């Protein structure tokens, strides 16, 4: 499934925000590396402030990169200006979180979906534009009658479908989905997740799926990257990370997801209480998670732990990975019915 030459390769990416005179810049992302293959879904998960959205913005060129490389099909696009970046707009598209602000309220749905074609493929005759727009609209499960209506007439789930249609109309190779299903209700979220998977099967598109929703991430991803305070804590195949988390942070993150099953949740509550330290124990000079980690020792504050390979395509940034006990009880995120 994973091609030998990655489609996208991010190496040692650092992004920092200036906080004005006299204050050190805020490092949102510190030396992240990741790869994305053809037809693959890589999820970036983490809590607020983990830097997951910043990574997406940096890849899309919406956020200046402080240092590092973003290689798209062999070319480093990290430091390209607006002009040269245009060459990659057919490769890289995005779907954002808020379905209520992701579409221009003054454009009809047809105009919104056709705009990428009009901007990127200037010479395309109007009949072909229309043909492609109708085709992609059908693909996302909407009727051509929607073309002449305005976004305000659609529900959140339908707007997200329109936003996906707009992202896909150029047949991009990579779509960055930044919290694309987070604002949706559970039943609508399921519809959109299914749609994203179906489009991946049909078009072979790769996704960078940025989310804090572990349940959605587990369902849709091939691989998962767990982020905490701008650093990678753990990376690996989705099922391994979700069902056998190695890093203490991943464990606490998964244990905290409440499941709709009373008996299972009672057990998870116990794990949840054990997964986080009761009170901040250590300074965050080394491992950023050390203050909240129940396994933290003085070794954890010496310096940022290196991301080490533990086999099976998994990497973990924890100096105590060999010493801490395996997670007790049942697999970390599963409901059996």
């Amino acid at each position, binding site marked *: 499934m994973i091609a030998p030459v990655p489609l996208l390769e991010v190496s040692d990416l650092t992004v920092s925000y200036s906080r004005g005179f006299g204050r050190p810049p805020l490092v949102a992302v510190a030396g992240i590396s990741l790869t994305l293959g053809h037809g693959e879904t890589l999820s970036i998960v983490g809590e607020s402030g983990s830097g997951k959205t910043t990574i997406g913005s940096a890849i899309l060129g919406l956020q200046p990169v402080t240092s590092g490389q973003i290689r798209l099909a062999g070319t480093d696009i990290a430091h390209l200006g607006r002009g040269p970046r245009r060459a990659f707009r057919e490769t890289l598209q995005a779907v954002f979180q808020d379905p209520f602000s992701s579409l221009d309220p003054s454009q009809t749905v047809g105009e919104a979906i056709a705009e990428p074609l009009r901007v990127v493929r200037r010479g395309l005759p109007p009949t072909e534009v229309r043909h492609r727009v109708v085709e992609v609209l059908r693909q996302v499960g909407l009727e051509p009658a929607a073309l002449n209506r305005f976004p305000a007439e659609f529900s959140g789930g339908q707007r997200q479908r329109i936003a996906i249609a707009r992202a896909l109309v150029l047949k991009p190779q990579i779509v960055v989905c930044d919290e694309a299903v987070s604002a949706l209700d559970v039943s609508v979220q399921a519809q959109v997740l299914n749609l994203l998977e179906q489009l991946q099967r049909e078009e072979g598109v790769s996704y960078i799926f940025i989310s804090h929703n572990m349940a959605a991430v587990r369902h849709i991803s091939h691989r998962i990257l767990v982020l905490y305070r701008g650093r990678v804590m753990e990376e690996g195949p989705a099922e391994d990370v979700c069902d056998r988390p190695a890093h203490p942070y991943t464990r606490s*993150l998964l244990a905290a997801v409440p499941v709709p099953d009373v008996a299972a949740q009672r057990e998870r509550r116990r794990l949840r*209480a054990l997964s986080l330290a009761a009170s901040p124990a250590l300074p965050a000079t080394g491992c950023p998670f050390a203050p909240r980690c129940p396994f933290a020792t003085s070794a954890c504050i010496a310096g940022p732990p290196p991301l080490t390979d533990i086999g099976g395509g998994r990497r973990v940034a924890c100096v105590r990975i060999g010493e801490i006990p395996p997670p007790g009880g049942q697999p970390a*995120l599963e409901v059996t*019915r």
Partner: protein
Amino acid sequence: MLRDYLRRPLGVVAGAFLLLVVLAVIGAPLIAPYDQLKMDLGHALSLPTRAHPFGTDRLGRDVLSRLLWGGRVSLGGLAEALSVAFAIGVVLGLVSGYVGRLVDNVISRSTEVLMATPGIVVLLMVYGISNNNSHWGMVALGVLCSPSVTRVTRTAARAVREEVFIASAEVLGMARPLIILRHVLPNVCGPIIVNTAVLGAVILGIQGGLNYINLGVNPPAASWGGMVSDAQRVLSQQPWLMVPSGATLTLTIMALMLVADGLRDAAASNRSRPPRSRAPALRPAVDAGATPAEPRAALSVRGLSVAIGGLEVVRNVAFDVGDAQTLGIVGESGCGKTVTASAVLGQLGAGFVTEGEVMFGGVDLNHAGSKARAATRGTGIAYVSQDPMVALDPCFTVMSQLGELVGRHDRLRGAMRRERVLELLRQVGLPDPADTAARFPHQLSGGMAQRVSIACALAGRPRVLIADEPTTALDVTIQGEILDLLRLLQKETGMAVVLITHDLGVVADLCDRVAVMYAGEIVELGEVGGIFERPAHPYTRALLASNPIASRRGAPLPVIAGTVPSPADWPVGCHFAARCPYRIAACNERPVPLETMVEAALHQVRCIRAGDLEAVTGGEVTA
């Protein structure tokens, strides 16, 4: 926006008047009865007559004709000044608001310099240099007025700049001028149009003043301001002469202001138009008062319906919460769960009509007076909201906010009050209460702020706590801590908790009983364990099944086809019927009552096929 504007009678009259004035002035050469300069000294200073409908002036010139010709100077000048102000203001405002940073700084500072310039001095200079040329004067006035347009446009453009569709256009690599033209400009038109009308009125006023002192107009040519000046000279001989010119100027300025008001209101109503009912407001209540309120419950709600503008948004909700019990109200957005909570709290705004009983401590709060209601606030029923940052006042420290509540509920002062505040903060698990108490809300993390807002709710030692999505805005690890805290507090205080959420996992974590709401109705109510293991209503089943937590990669998630109907589209029969895979013809015939499934567990379900489905699927969770 136009349709909304046309619903406002005052705006329509003002708009029609302006249109009439503009058309008349444009058509002056055709409709003016006399030449504006034709003197008739024999009929000087006459009152309105058949020959001179508005009378004549000092030199016997026809006032109507002079008004029409003078309007060309006045309105023409207005058009010139407005065009200049807009050409400068809109371009600078868009660039400044969209590009931001250095460009914004340069443009904003230059705009401020222009605003600080003494306008009248500049105008006098321009008239002086240009030999009293009206066009140059109006161009100068337009430049001087442009900062107000620049600022309005800049503010609107900055707001649009933050919208996600702009980021999406940037990802497309669209050129900046194209983004401004296609995406920013159409979305800032509203405020700009409103500003046009206001600025028009201001400019017309200033111009009238300039013409009054013969600036920008060369007598004997007429202008509205100049005619006021003429009339003033003969005020003692013929007061009437002041009326036509003065009224025209005043009415035109007023009409411009009224049009601006109308446009502003129309633009606002576009965004918040209340849904209009297409169905009769009151539908048969099938299970109102089916069982009387439970006297032993901490809170007992019966037949609660809420309507706004004749449109029912919550229908016939009934539930009980016992002391030390937690009831979850779960549902998707728009199902009416928050409105239900607000109705129980009596916190719905004007326009909402609430029916039914809200029994608390033997009193029906819905029908009791505002005094009985006020007596329960905080001490009887307390409330925790979704966003703690909004719930806390940013101007006061935690100590002062919590202290005020403690002072109100316990009548404590000084050191005693301080002690009680620290005790409350300790109770909600804050490790360093004294430190937290000294902080302002913005200095707290989300989890800490939610703990403080729970402490505020606990200050009055309530019997019932209503928590509306208390963990939705928080990170998942913090959510766990807050749920544990609520459980601990309930154990300590024995209060009843009503937890409103969209997350079935949160319900499983904290609740004893759960009410599942769909499109304004409770569709299933019972013990949490029973409902999650054997959901009886097809909606509950589908909701549980569509949660990705229960799925495997690769296999598509079970989904509920279609979308939740809006209140205006609720059917007479089962609200879920249109999306239900088990629907039969009878489902759509009449309202479905909430019926008891399992007597012992008080498991109720609103589905006529609940019994059959149990037999058909054996309680399997499939959708």
